């Protein structure tokens, strides 16, 4: 069996195991995520393969990233879930859904077949709905319902787009799996009917754009991030959004291979700019720390969409690096905020203050993560935003006019929030205690990785980044 198949199967079996045998589920969850690092590393070391699950230079780094963040979230969850006070039934559904979500997410990243991709993203949605609603408070149920209904709506549109793409490919491809294979569709796209490709892509973009948190169908995202348990927020931002964005990129690659079809870049740039600008303004008015980070995810998905819309080797590399860096920094920020919310007994920003003085390892970690998310050097997003500005100046200088103010406004909002959360006078702790390794280890590991990809990207990874960018239009 290929490493890709083993990875998906491991999490699937894990979901079954944790559903059937919930004793010591948190520890088993962590062990399963640790074991998943092995096939993920094998995929990263030697991408390739045939069939439905196919690793290439584009998705292999995301698989590794997902495994690392999944492991970090499981480690964080080990401690955090004790504070939730779940009964046995909820513990069981929480952990089983966690593993099920990881299985679906890896399948979505690795799948070449658009049908399987769709099924995986839908299955991941259902698993995360269970996890978002697990608190059963009115706000959590509302968040889960909104997530469920909006994403159900979006994903239905995406499937219609996939069906139309298959219809476009039908005269040119043999019957069976090839009609839904992204690689086969792309190879044959130049001969397909451009009008059908246009129709298919628009639905695909709006549908998967919902899952990627792009404006205008973004409104599930802040609620789902704020109301679910913190480890879920970390994997939603770190994994799900990337998988959805890669799904859009597959559709974009198919349509862009046909010269008579519409050029998909403009749509991506428009949705990206709308996301960036709306989030930039909205970030200033957030009072809930986890909602703030959720809105920041909308902002960063928008930035990545702009980069992919600009395209070319420079734009695509900027977009990919941005997705890597964002996943690392955002999950790090969620780990820190989640722990802080436990310490203070409240996740409102008014209740959290002075973390850097009262809990230095935690507070300074959050300072770095939020400064990185604001686009300050030296962490990953500074480099990718710099590349993006360079690509925009070359390809479409007018994009800079809304892009730079948007980056500035959003970055300042995050710095302002960071200053309130970390640097002011400390607020009293409701449940005093030190930050434990289960928080600090994933937090600082992610920060270190974000530093590495910005300043000293290892040569093989840099080669993968270039190759992956070359796979996109």
């Amino acid at each position, binding site marked *: 069996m290929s490493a890709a198949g083993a990875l998906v199967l491991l999490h699937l079996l894990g979901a079954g195991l944790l559903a059937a045998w919930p004793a010591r589920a948190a520890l088993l969850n962590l062990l399963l995520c640790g074991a998943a690092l092995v096939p993920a590393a094998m995929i990263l070391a030697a991408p390739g393969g045939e069939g439905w699950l196919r690793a290439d230079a584009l998705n292999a780094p995301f698989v590794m990233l997902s495994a690392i963040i999944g492991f970090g979230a499981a480690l964080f969850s080990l401690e955090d879930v004790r504070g939730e006070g779940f009964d046995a039934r909820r513990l069981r559904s929480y952990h089983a859904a966690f593993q099920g979500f990881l299985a679906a997410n890896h399948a979505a990243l690795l799948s070449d*077949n658009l*049908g*399987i991709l*769709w*099924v995986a993203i*839908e*299955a991941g949605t*259902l698993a995360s*709905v*269970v996890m978002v*609603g697990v608190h*059963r408070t*009115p*706000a959590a*149920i*509302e*968040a*889960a*319902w909104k997530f*469920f*209904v909006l994403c*159900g*709506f979006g994903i*239905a*549109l995406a*499937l*219609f787009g996939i*069906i*139309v793409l*298959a*219809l*476009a490919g*039908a*005269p040119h491809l043999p*019957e*069976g*799996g090839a*009609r*839904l294979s992204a690689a086969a569709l792309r190879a044959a796209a130049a001969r397909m*009917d451009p*009008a*059908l490709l*246009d*129709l298919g892509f628009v639905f695909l973009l709006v549908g998967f754009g919902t899952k990627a948190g792009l404006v205008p169908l973004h409104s599930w995202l*802040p*609620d789902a991030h*704020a*109301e679910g348990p913190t480890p879920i927020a970390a994997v939603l931002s770190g994994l799900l959004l990337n998988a959805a964005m890669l799904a859009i990129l597959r559709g974009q690659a198919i349509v862009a291979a046909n010269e008579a079809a519409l050029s998909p870049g403009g749509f991506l740039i428009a949705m990206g700019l709308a996301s960036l600008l709306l989030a930039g303004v909205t970030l200033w008015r*957030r*009072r*809930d720390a986890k*909602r703030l980070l959720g809105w920041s995810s909308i902002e960063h998905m928008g930035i990545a969409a702009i980069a992919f819309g600009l395209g070319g080797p420079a734009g695509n590399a900027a977009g990919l690096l941005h997705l890597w860096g964002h996943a690392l920094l955002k999950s790090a920020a969620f780990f820190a905020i989640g722990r802080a919310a436990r310490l203070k007994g409240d996740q409102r920003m008014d209740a959290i203050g002075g973390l850097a003085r009262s809990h230095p390892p935690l507070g300074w970690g959050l300072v770095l993560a939020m400064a990185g998310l604001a686009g300050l050097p030296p962490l990953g997003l500074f480099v990718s935003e710099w590349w993006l500005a360079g690509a925009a100046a070359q390809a479409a200088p007018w994009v800079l006019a809304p892009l730079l103010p948007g980056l500035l406004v959003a970055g300042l909002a995050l710095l302002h929030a960071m200053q309130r959360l970390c640097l002011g006078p400390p607020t009293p702790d409701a449940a005093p205690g030190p930050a434990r390794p289960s928080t600090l280890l994933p937090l600082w590991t992610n920060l270190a990785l974000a530093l590495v990809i910005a300043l000293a990207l290892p040569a093989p990874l840099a080669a993968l980044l270039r190759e992956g960018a070359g796979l996109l239009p």
Partner: protein
Amino acid sequence: MTGLGELGYDVAHLLGGAMLLVSFVLLAQRRLEAVTGALALQGVLLALAAAWQGHVQGAGQLLLTAGIALAAKGVGIPLVLRRMAAALPPAQRADAPGPLAPVMLGAVALVALAFLLAVPATRGAPVLARVDIAIALAILLLGALMMVTRRGALAQVAGLLTMENGLILAAVGVAGMPLVVEISTAGLVLVVAVIAGVFARQLGERFGAQDTALLDRHRGERR
């Protein structure tokens, strides 16, 4: 236009058109019991449409699709939804869709939009698939309209399920969807219905009504 007047084409048309009509019925129904009945009817029509396409295209696996559609969409899911609706207090078994005239006008406009979008775009596709895609898109959009105009959780789920019906109709018109995809899609739809039901019941327990409008005041930021 080739194909018009031929039996294969006309029957596919008829079944798709009937499904679209049921979508209008769904939009107008107040009582949840009637909504589930219409949903079952649409599921049965979908199964017939899939079976007919299987016959015309000579694709045996579409008969399996038809069987799954009949079991899940024609019988299983509507029955589950009906039981949930029956468990609600009588006052909540009806769900006002608001003033009907604008909703219906909107529905007509959406159908026109679907045909304006899909018919020119599918010029290169096989004739049998062309109208199928346009009708499927119309059903999809009407399902979306139902989700937007209804407040009740169960009625919103019914909207989502008609959207899925439209999707399957589109899929059976395009020959060659792999079987795995069909089966797992059907399985997922079932899970969707179950999860939706669970949440609908929780909404009901919490607020004594499964009216999602009540949730508005729980919007996080205003807490």
